């Protein structure tokens, strides 16, 4: 079996040292993912190598990391595409490193409830009265934005988030947009307050890298930038009768 060199950015919080690169040379097979490579290292070479993972199929969002400087999910990035290496694996950008490849996701998790990520129905209805009707066309208006797996690759991609942690960021704006576009929901006005703010869409400068790296084709750049138009229109029409506050 051929070998590949994997360079991992290690960080031990117990010491005062800065992160350092450690090199491992491991055998690999055609179908091995970077995640499997890390598991091999942890199982046979260094049990202290630390990373998050679970589903192995790009749906749980745990294993986001920088692979050769690009935000990727380790479970569906394959060693064969980087052989013989070295392939450089680091913690996701723009987040504090807690240990090795584990980042501190507190900022994202704390912002999450602020986007009102639930349905506030336009029309009250009891489950016993049946489902809300929603045509396939209405579903299509928001479905793409509902595919976000909260992997935070877009936050690692976004330089504005890197420079200013107050920015709501691509992923959460996409989720916010998902709810605004859902025909069953009536809380757009509340969410738009967040959108209008400095930390909302106006911190975005349309770099667009977030949509490039998104593993689920959510296109958060679209969600954010569509809302710039909405925000501007809302602002200009705010004195018209019938416009929302």
């Amino acid at each position, binding site marked *: 079996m051929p070998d590949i060199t994997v360079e991992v950015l290690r960080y031990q919080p117990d010491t005062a040292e800065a992160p350092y690169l450690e090199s491992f040379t491991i055998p690999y097979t055609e179908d091995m993912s970077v995640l499997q490579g890390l598991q091999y290292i942890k199982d046979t070479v260094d049990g202290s190598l630390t990373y998050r993972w679970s589903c192995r199929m790009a749906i749980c969002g745990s294993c986001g990391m920088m692979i050769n400087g690009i935000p990727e999910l380790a479970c569906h990035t394959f060693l064969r595409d980087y052989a013989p290496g070295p392939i450089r694996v680091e913690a996701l950008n723009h987040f504090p490193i807690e240990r090795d490849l584990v980042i501190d996701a507190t900022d994202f998790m704390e912002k999450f409830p602020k986007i009102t990520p639930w349905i506030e129905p336009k029309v009250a209805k009891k489950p016993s009265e049946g*489902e809300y009707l929603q045509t396939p066309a209405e579903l299509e208006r928001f479905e793409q934005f509902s595919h976000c797996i909260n992997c935070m690759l877009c936050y690692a991609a976004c330089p504005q988030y890197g420079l200013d942690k107050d920015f709501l960021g691509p992923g959460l704006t996409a989720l916010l947009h998902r709810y605004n576009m859902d025909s069953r929901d009536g809380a757009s006005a509340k969410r738009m307050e967040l959108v209008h703010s400095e930390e909302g869409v106006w911190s975005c400068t349309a770099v667009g890298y977030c949509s490039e790296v998104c593993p689920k084709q959510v296109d958060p750049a679209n969600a954010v930038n569509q809302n710039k138009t909405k925000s501007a229109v809302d602002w200009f029409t705010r004195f018209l009768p019938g416009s929302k506050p």
Partner: protein
Amino acid sequence: METFSFDIAIVGGGGAGLRAAIAAAEADPSLRIALLSKVYPMRSHTVAAEGGSAAVTRSDDSLEHHFNDTVSGGDWLCDQDVVEYFVAHCTEEMTQLEHWGCPWSRKEDGHVNVRAFGGMKIERTWFAADRTGFHMLHTLFQTSMKYPSIQRFDEHFCCDLVVDDGRVQGVVAIEIATGGFKLIRAKSVIIATGGAGRVFRQNTNGGIVTGDGMALAYRHGVPLRDMEFMQYHPTCMPGTGLLFTEACRGEGGLLTNKDGYRYLQDYGLGPPDPWPRKKAMELGPRDRLSQAFWHEERKGRTIETPQGPAVNLDLRHLGEAKLRERLPQIYELAVEFMGIDPAKSPVPVRPAVHYTMGGIPTNVLTASPLPGLYAVGECASVGIHGANRLGSNSLAELCVFGKVAGEEAARFAKSVPPPEEPELLRQANAAKDRALQVLKRPVMGERLADVRDSMAKSMERGCGIYRLEDEMRETCEELAKLKERFASVALKDHSERWNTEWLSTLELGFQLDVAQAMAHSALERRESRGAHQRLDAYKTRDDVKYLKHTLATYQGDSTPAITYSDVTITKSQPAERVYGGAAKEVTHA
């Protein structure tokens, strides 16, 4: 040690745990609810479920049909009173999810669409493309954020229960980021920690599915029920074991062997046409399909892949447009992981361990034998799956019984006095010491991965799709030896912060106990039923001796004690499980 007081503690933040938390919060907003999860809730394994969630919907369907499909699918090992409750509440729960925003796939008129699924007489599986578990989990998680009374302890590893005065009184958890221990006192505890599929080698499960909650209850004297019944999902990726949803077959996909032959017709599931047809051929139940693969492999009719033998899942006739609309996630999976375009080539698949039918026994109110302890979801054996689960019943289970668990735990919490402080702290400190003993292991010794992989291989061999007395016995012996070896597993990482090697070692301890319960339960069940099929002297179902649940009781370092309990039979008397062409004619008494 930091201590907290809550009314209810929920261990596990997947679909079941979240549904229970929401139900408890709605039952009484003044109750304080702690929701612990060793991962962020959106990483829970519910996220990987694909195909759908069952609920009677069509006018030509009925609760009786769903009931009969489930009971016969479970080879009559289901508690029929529980199944009756279950089927009667699925539709309401799926509708509730819809109200909370779940993006169910729709018909043109705006009503929710339903698809055919394995072992089900009529289409009743609600689906959200082929990402149903993902959408259900995210809907539940995001909805749970509405309730201020739910306090989450994300990335907290539950290492023990605290039991005093004959009832559960809290949990002890490790904050993963710091290694700090917390005592979370609670008047009722709900375990919703999922299954234990990772004890087997090839499986569809995520790394976190290690039977934690089952082991914790087990070690506190709660028997584990029906542990021998492990579901092999017939269509998984060779090597990784990743799941190709049953919906592939629900949408019309075919299974062919190396000769291009739809081999399922040789195993009582035919005739092959007309296709698609409910409960026949590729829409038969999972245990039968996995067993057919096993036979095909023995006959040398499977295809060889670099990751081992497989059969072909042929989706070409569905066409790219339909595949991208109905099965987008598995399309991506085939392309990204295997370099195969399902619209142009068949996809090699094979069975892998997928679901744990057994678990912590509960009644229909999700109460375990230990007062104050509730269990719900895959970690529980509430009685609906019996010896074999029908696809799309488990996602529905999360919500139907998640709600019950939340309401019951709330009711119990209000009925009992607050706990005795000093005793709980003493127990918590003892649990902390036990966990820290593992952290202090030397750097030289057995390798964690070796013990884990040996367990997984042994379980695959002894408790596979077909079982033999000798092989099961061998696995039981190997597990006993592995438990000894486990005591000498070394630890390289002695940090307290984010020490996943330490936690993996604790998880392996849980897994070995659960594996023992599985292997001994399998050995002692001397019949074949559902997912437990034997090729030795016990090839047939024995309703005289074994129309019973198996109970495995922890005996510390000794092997588990195996006893039996009754199955509740109400409307449906055990009959022959009939699929294929004949299924249309059979009506159940």
